[in-house]
């Protein structure tokens, strides 16, 4: 029993220590950034890696999820004779929930794991040490641009996800199931509020982008520099990032929409 408590305490302390270290790394890479002229091309390059290369998976998933929403919404709403509300339902569920959450989950799997593996491998092959010896802080040169890129990309990707999803829903609803086009769109326009829905969805995406990228770069920077260490860190990135996204989503939703 005592043993159990002791072990719990030790694990807790270790987690706390890791969290503190992650915080320090975050602060150092964000505060002390190099001159904009150096930073800008690095960030652009990373945006290409984590953002542009994630586009395909985001667009395809957005399209299918939008189509499924359209289909499901129709089969439920048609019983009440209110199938014109499909547009509203698709748009609201995408903008408020599905776009930020699913994008963040896909982003964790596609870009987060790649970030962790890349940084971990740089550590294992002493590239980070060698940067330090050249007199460049790897936190600024390697971690910071990746962090900013993830932070910038996720809201953009989530927005694209929403747009494509709505198009998918419209395709199923209007072209396939024959909902009247005018009421589909006007219903959607009337019910989606910019501040309440679009802005809150974007805030979620920004928070998720921050958390997922933070976890990914920290796991890479902190990994044990061996092949097992890197594979373990990659797994951790996906698991921790996904769980944090889902947990945070609940908290954010409660804060944003809970007091109605």
């Amino acid at each position, binding site marked *: 029993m005592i043993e159990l408590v002791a072990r719990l305490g030790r694990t807790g302390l270790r987690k706390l220590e890791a969290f503190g270290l992650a915080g320090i790394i975050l602060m150092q890479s964000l505060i002390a950034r190099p001159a904009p002229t150096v930073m800008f091309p690095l960030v652009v390059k990373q945006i290409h890696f984590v953002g542009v290369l994630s586009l395909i998976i985001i667009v395809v998933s957005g399209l299918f999820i939008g189509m499924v929403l359209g289909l499901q919404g129709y089969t439920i709403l048609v019983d009440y004779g209110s199938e014109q509300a499909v547009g509203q339902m698709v748009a609201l569920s995408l903008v408020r929930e599905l776009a930020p959450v699913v994008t963040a989950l896909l982003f964790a799997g596609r870009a987060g794991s790649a970030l962790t593996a890349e940084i971990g491998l740089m550590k294992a092959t002493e590239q980070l*040490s*060698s940067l330090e010896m*050249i007199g460049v802080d790897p936190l600024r040169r390697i971690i910071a641009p990746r962090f900013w890129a993830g932070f910038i990309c996720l809201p953009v990707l989530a927005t694209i996800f929403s747009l494509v999803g709505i198009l998918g829903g419209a395709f199923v609803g209007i072209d396939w199931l024959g909902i009247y086009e005018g009421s589909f769109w006007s219903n959607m326009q009337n019910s989606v509020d910019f501040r309440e829905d679009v802005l809150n969805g974007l805030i979620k995406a920004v928070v998720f982008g921050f958390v997922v990228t933070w976890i990914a770069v920290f796991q890479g920077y902190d990994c044990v520099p061996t092949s097992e260490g890197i594979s373990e860190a990659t797994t951790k990135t996906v698991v921790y990032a996904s769980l944090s996204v889902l947990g945070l989503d609940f908290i954010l939703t409660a804060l944003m929409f809970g007091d109605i």
Partner: protein
Amino acid sequence: MEQFDDVIIDIQKLSFSRGDRAIYKNVDIQIPRGKITAIMGPSGTGKTTLLKLIGGQLRPESGSIFIDGKDIPRLGRRELFEMRARMGMLFQSGALFTDISVFENVAFPLRIHTDLSEEMIRDVVLMKLHAVGLRGARDLMPSELSGGMARRVALARAIALDPDIVMYDEPFTGQDPIAMGVLVNLIRRLNRALGHTSIIVSHDIQETLAIADYIYLISDSEVIARGTPEEMASESSQKVRQFIQGLPDGPVPFHFPAADYQADLLQDS
């Protein structure tokens, strides 16, 4: 034990351990300015660790490492990075940046620390690559190089800025006899012509004896012998003779610290 006229790196009472294993215990090492100093010793004694201590990547448990009067472990982050701009280090694994070409790897320190024009950078990079015989490989990516080539590119990168202090961690490993001869000459020439202080970690006794001005032999957390190559060659101590002649039996342990062999084998698992 001789005293040097001009010491650039002065290590005093250095102690460092990994876990329970002491790597250094109260070690004093002086590196003379403008000379080639070799650090030798059995595998796993902590030669690479020593270079990392000098570069400020590891902190000693106690003791000081003075470079030109500045104590490395006590420097702030900025001062440390300034100090490192004066050092070049060839890592044991090469440690080239895998996402940029050979040319960009060598150009990297120049771009960071100088305002040279693109043309000048090109000239310097090609000169350094030419010196290691790889001018023709400038457009290759590090993944397309052989082990020995990668190490030579890393060497070119380490000397790109003409640093005051160059640390070579096993520069000769994996080189064919021709490249080996070229590298030995290159290191000597850099040292004589430009006055670099060089620290070489190496297991190649003949090459090292040939170019080093001074040699430290490290084993069991201590400096077991120090002196010029001539002094080392005529050293009567058994440990030194064993190492220099490469004999498996003797006072210098070949094995990582372990329980008695026989007892280990007989022990039931």
